[in-house]
């Protein structure tokens, strides 16, 4: 199995997100998935750019799709924003044939063409559907059974389900199923499916803070060992944003580690916390990692 990787703008360039890339690369490699990076990947033109001009944005996203199409590969991305943008291109092609022509007229000026033959996939959905729970379970070296986390599906991996076609977003299960299969306890808690306000960062910072405050309080009240995210914006908000929420709202004891979904799997596969960038997160992850290791040394090591 070979996939063209679209890493996005944020994942490879932000301190707390490069661990997402490192863990994704390790997990895919470990599971025998061959990957090739989309050459000279450019901005996928997500919702904020679509807000300025929809047609320009489609053509910008189609540039990376065209590169995957040239290689004859489907596209895989860990970033929900990128996933959303790429799904939008094919969806618009199918429903508005005139847009297909328009986009290709634009692309022609850059000597590119995109015919809509690339399927775009989100890493977490890919792990669940294409690799499968059993194959992942069999690759585990450490039992993750000591921890209870809050899995956040975020918005742009699932909504709207008519566009993204993974699972209806109100009570999704596939991510929980995958983590539970490797021993992690996923807690159902108030607010776990709600928006983090990430897309308002940089343009409506106050509102983004109010929303994030509510999400962090939801997580705090749920008494979790940590949060797990599948979206770059969710992680930026909950991890990097946590300090400023603490200060702004005067919350003393707010210290929730936020892990990227593949980081948990990589720990289970036996990679060290440093190898997958867990030491680079803003909120320290030592506690949750120590808990996993302690659990493993109590007899949880499987092989």
């Amino acid at each position, binding site marked *: 199995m070979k996939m063209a990787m679209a890493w996005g703008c944020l994942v490879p360039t932000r301190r707390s997100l490069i661990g997402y890339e490192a863990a994704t690369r390790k997990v895919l490699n470990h599971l025998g998935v061959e990957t090739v990076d989309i050459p000279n990947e450019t901005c996928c033109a997500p919702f904020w750019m679509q807000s300025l*001009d929809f047609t320009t944005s489609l053509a910008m996203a189609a540039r990376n799709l065209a590169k995957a199409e040239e290689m004859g590969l489907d596209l895989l991305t860990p970033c929900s924003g990128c996933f959303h943008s790429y799904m939008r291109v094919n969806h618009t092609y199918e429903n508005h044939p005139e847009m297909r022509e328009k986009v290709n007229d634009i692309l022609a000026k850059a000597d590119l063409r995109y015919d809509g033959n690339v399927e775009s996939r989100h890493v977490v959905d890919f792990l669940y559907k294409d690799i499968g729970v059993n194959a992942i379970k069999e690759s585990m070296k450490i039992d993750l059974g000591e921890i209870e986390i809050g899995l956040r599906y975020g918005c742009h991996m699932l909504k709207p389900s008519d566009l993204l076609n993974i699972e209806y977003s109100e009570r999704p299960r596939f991510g929980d199923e995958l983590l539970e299969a490797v021993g992690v306890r996923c807690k159902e808690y108030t607010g776990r499916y709600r928006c983090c306000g990430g897309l308002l960062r940089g*343009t409506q910072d106050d509102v983004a803070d109010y929303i994030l405050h509510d999400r962090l309080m939801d997580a705090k009240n749920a008494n979790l060992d940590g949060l797990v995210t599948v979206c770059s914006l969710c992680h930026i908000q909950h991890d990097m944003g946590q300090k400023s929420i603490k200060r702004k709202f005067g919350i003393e004891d707010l210290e929730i580690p936020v892990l990227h979904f593949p980081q948990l799997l990589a720990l289970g596969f036996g990679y060290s916390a440093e190898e997958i960038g867990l030491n680079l997160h803003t909120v320290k992850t030592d506690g949750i990692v120590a808990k996993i290791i302690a659990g493993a040394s109590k007899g949880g090591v499987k092989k």
Partner: protein
Amino acid sequence: MERAEDIKSYKPDQPIQDSDVQSGFKYEVAEHVGAEGLMRCLKCGACSGGCPVAAVTDYRPRKVLGDVLLGLKDQVLSSDTLWLCAACFTCEERCIQEVNFTDVVTVLRNMAVREGFAAEGYMEMAKRVIQFGRVSPLTRQVERMRENLNLPPLQEPAIEELRAIMESAGFPEIMEAATRRSKTV
């Protein structure tokens, strides 16, 4: 924008007059890709009920839809309110009439930008993309961290290709229209 707990009344400052209404506005909006569902809106308010921004401010998607259907073109396009949607798509997921409000917001924002009203933050991000090919450039510090993690060097984005695409799509002209008024949101 007011915080939810500060709201005293929903009565507007003054009643809407005939002169405020451009009755063709909704048809104009519904012609765009993404806004085809607009006329199906029943104004039931499910969009407002699930909206994360409505939970913390006085922003209400139903109010925006109502204003569009009524024909308050100038008010809708020039209002800061238009830039409050966080694009979580919950309203779109829940709307029984498949109005696709988030996509309607995109159409309205595209129209607003051409009238000279654009969120300054998003304009700045677009400028960064034109300059660097990506919205967040790589710093030397993160580059070193990537090396420590044994990540491959990050490839230079195909900036010339991207600029050709944006120019061919007419984006520079749109940016110019957007900055004609020095409106900041």
